């Protein structure tokens, strides 16, 4: 609860500072601002609860420990840049799973990130545009109240900036179409998908994008026909998605950076001492990982302690565990599995 309030308080403070005490806050966007503050509270609260689970707490602690080790820090920073590019920006691991899956995810991600980068600074009053004094048709971009980029209203840059959300919508719609196609055709998707987990997020993204584009169509080509209704409809879709952020599939956006911690943890494990199986004597994992899992399992209430051969079942490699089941079954028939 404290984490949620703290995060919400920090964002509220940044809104006050960035909008110059709300003087640049767009009154038409206040509903979005409050929905974002609620989402921030929910996300921070759920994240803090998630970090309290024993395996998550262990990975969080170990991930930072191995990342910040002075001897490995430079290498880790270089690896961090590489991983941010290939894992987060390019989604290489999802493209490897399937081209259509990779394309769908990348398009949705790119469109959403673009929309977020445009929408939130506008909603918080961090960015606003003003006509340049004495220069007809020229606009100045103010960031946190400071004048920055200026451009003419008819320039290519103006077209790109003012229609940024339209480009984002088109990317998201293309991604949603690909994802929906897979969900409606593939037998694995048919067996495993759930409405709330898999269809609802796609429907939300689609409705946000389409209603946003309808606003553009209304004011560009239909002289503002039904604009007020459309703007309320669009706000409803966006606010629903914001309120749902902490609870549904979208929360994976905030969990996903843990993948970086896991990667650095594995790197450190590979360079460190290896655990050898108590049965076959072969190395099978990093000793750090095995010791950490023993601690996590104890905290979770599992009692895999052994009386002989090793102190804990975690010290037997997965391959030997598979053989042991057959041997145990064989014992019931009066001998080892190989003797039956």
């Amino acid at each position, binding site marked *: 609860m404290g984490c949620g309030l703290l995060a919400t308080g920090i964002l509220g403070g940044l809104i006050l500072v960035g909008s110059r005490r709300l003087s640049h806050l767009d009154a038409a966007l206040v509903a979005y601002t409050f929905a974002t503050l609620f989402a921030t509270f929910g996300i921070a609260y759920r994240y803090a609860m998630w970090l309290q689970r024993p395996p998550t707490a262990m990975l969080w602690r170990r991930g930072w420990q191995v990342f910040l080790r002075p001897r490995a820090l430079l290498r880790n920073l270089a690896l961090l840049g590489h991983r941010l590019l290939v894992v987060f920006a390019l989604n290489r691991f999802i493209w490897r799973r399937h081209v259509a899956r990779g394309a769908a995810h990348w398009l949705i991600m790119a469109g959403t990130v673009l929309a977020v980068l445009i929408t939130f600074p506008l909603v918080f009053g961090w960015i606003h545009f003003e006509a340049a004094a004495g220069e007809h048709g020229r606009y100045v971009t103010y960031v946190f109240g400071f004048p920055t980029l200026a451009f003419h209203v008819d320039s290519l840059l103006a077209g790109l900036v003012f229609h940024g959300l339209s480009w984002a919508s088109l990317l998201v719609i293309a991604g949603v179409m690909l994802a929906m196609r897979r969900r409606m055709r593939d037998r694995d998707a048919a067996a495993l998908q759930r409405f709330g987990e898999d269809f609802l997020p796609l429907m939300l993204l689609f409705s946000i994008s389409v209603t946003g584009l309808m606003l553009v169509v209304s004011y560009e080509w239909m002289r503002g026909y039904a604009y007020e209704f459309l703007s309320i409809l669009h706000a409803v879709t966006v606010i629903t998605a914001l309120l749902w952020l902490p609870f549904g599939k979208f929360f994976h956006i905030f969990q996903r950076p843990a993948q970086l911690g896991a990667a650095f943890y594995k790197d450190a494990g590979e360079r460190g001492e290896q655990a050898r199986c108590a049965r*076959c004597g072969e190395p099978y994992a990093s000793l750090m990982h095995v010791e950490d899992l023993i601690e996590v399992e104890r905290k979770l209430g599992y009692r895999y302690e052994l009386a002989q051969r090793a102190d804990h079942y975690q010290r037997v490699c997965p391959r030997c565990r598979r053989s042991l089941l057959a041997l145990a079954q064989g*014992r019931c028939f009066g001998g080892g599995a190989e003797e039956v």
Partner: protein
Amino acid sequence: MPVPADRHFFIDPRRCIGCQSCVHACSECDTHKGHSMIHLEYVGRGDSPQTVPTICMHCDSPTCAEVCPADAIKRTEDGVVQSARKARCIACSNCVLACPFGVPKMNVGFELMMKCDMCYDRTSVGLKPMCATVCPSQALCFGTEEEIRTLRPRSTFVHAFRFGQQTISTKVRVMVPKESEVLSLDVTAALNEEEAKDPMAAMFTEGNP
């Protein structure tokens, strides 16, 4: 649709002839297309040709799910422990190392844990899993308890397994002789007996804490 409550997986490693049919059929499953989730291994190649097929046992309280930091592994209401959710798995390998039966596989390229999900695309619509469909010796058998009692009149089954002080109950059943009257299989007892037979084995463990 859930897997029918009266249909169960029965495995009998003693009947396995190591033909690899299950391994190849498994990769035909739609939920993990082209990737076989079955482990088929020799129990002790030097002594015997005995092989053991390993599928997911679908634990009632899955250790793999409990140790997952990303909460990516879910057990559906029909008792099937599903493969890691693609949006959540962070490829930490906790599940691979923690599973008491040695089931999950880590696909490094995909950065994703994959495992047997009892061919959910098939079992959820009333079909048998691929491996049980093709197994010629029926070491892997899928059916009702009545069917297995008719097919194997001298055997019964257990679905509780002991690992040291921990007992794990599962959806999947393992066949045992009827006269043995065991209620649970002591998996780690085999480990201890091996040590008793082979005093040199203790040397392996000296380097381990």
